[in-house]
């Protein structure tokens, strides 16, 4: 039975791969050309970097739901908690700790830069949040930050703040006619507001994915 499944999967996989390769090689040009549309509307989007414009404006709805996905993953990890206290951090090389202490301001600065840069060039809330989270993970590994248990209220607030800001902006604009339809004059400011909230919350959530898990059942 297992051998049968294995051969079936291999055969289906190989034929699927072959079919897809053939399909890709004979594809005509696409009928719709979105890069032109993006470029045309970039001036009204409130930012200059096309990817940020798609992420926060043209397809901001995807991004809103995606933040919900992250929150949800964290929430489910919390249901698995069982409330056991995490093991205390193991003794760590003091050299590493010193390095981590010195790195901390640099990490925060990098995140801030990425957040600000996102409007004009590659960067933005997701990259900035990821850098913050990486910093938190690093601190934990250096023994400077304990693993997290059940989140207290202030931490819960930090986790959801970015999402709540995003949701509030969406709701306020819905009152004006359409979900997330930024008035062009305010678009830049609103996007920066959302991104600032998201940077903090995404940093906490992404860090939380690691810090709520680590040391729990080791």
């Amino acid at each position, binding site marked *: 039975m297992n051998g049968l499944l294995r051969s079936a999967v291999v055969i289906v*996989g190989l034929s699927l*791969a072959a079919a897809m390769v053939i399909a890709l090689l004979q594809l005509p040009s696409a009928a719709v050309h979105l*890069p032109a549309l993006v470029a045309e509307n970039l001036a009204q989007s409130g930012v200059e970097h096309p990817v940020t414009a798609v992420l926060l404006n*043209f397809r901001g709805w*995807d991004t809103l739901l995606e933040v919900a*996905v992250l929150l949800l993953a964290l929430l489910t990890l919390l249901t698995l908690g069982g409330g056991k206290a995490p093991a205390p951090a193991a003794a760590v090389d003091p050299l590493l700790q010193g390095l981590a202490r010195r790195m901390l301001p640099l990490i925060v600065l990098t995140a801030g830069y990425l957040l600000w840069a996102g409007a004009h060039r590659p960067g933005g809330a997701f990259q900035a949040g990821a850098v913050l989270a990486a910093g938190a993970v690093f601190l934990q590994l250096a023994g400077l930050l304990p693993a997290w248990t059940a989140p207290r209220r202030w931490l819960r607030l930090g986790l959801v703040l970015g999402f709540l800001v995003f949701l509030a902006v969406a709701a306020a604009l819905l009152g004006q006619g359409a979900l997330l339809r930024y008035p062009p004059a305010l678009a830049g400011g609103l996007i920066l507001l959302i991104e600032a909230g998201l940077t903090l919350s995404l940093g906490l959530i992404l860090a939380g994915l690691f810090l709520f898990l680590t040391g729990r059942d080791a």
Partner: protein
Amino acid sequence: MSTGLLYALAGVLLFVLGAAGAVLLAHLMRKVLAFNVMGSGAFLVLVGLAQREDVIDPVPQAMVLTGIVVAVAATALALGLARAFHARTGRTGLTEEARRD
């Protein structure tokens, strides 16, 4: 052949490799790795195929950014469940569960 198409073809291979691995490999960690390879393959097809005429398209790029974040959320959840499962049973695969009704 354009750069975009080349990477799209690579994406096809990674997708199929990952999908087969996710179905066939028994160890939960391997399933998670395989699922991530599968996702990366789909991402490469999404961007590579859209840019097969070597025109940068920010729309699929933004989609992939969304997809990467969703993938890490799913990975963390899968690992959390796998750890909880292992802590309760000492096992690292679901094969025995499959035999029970």
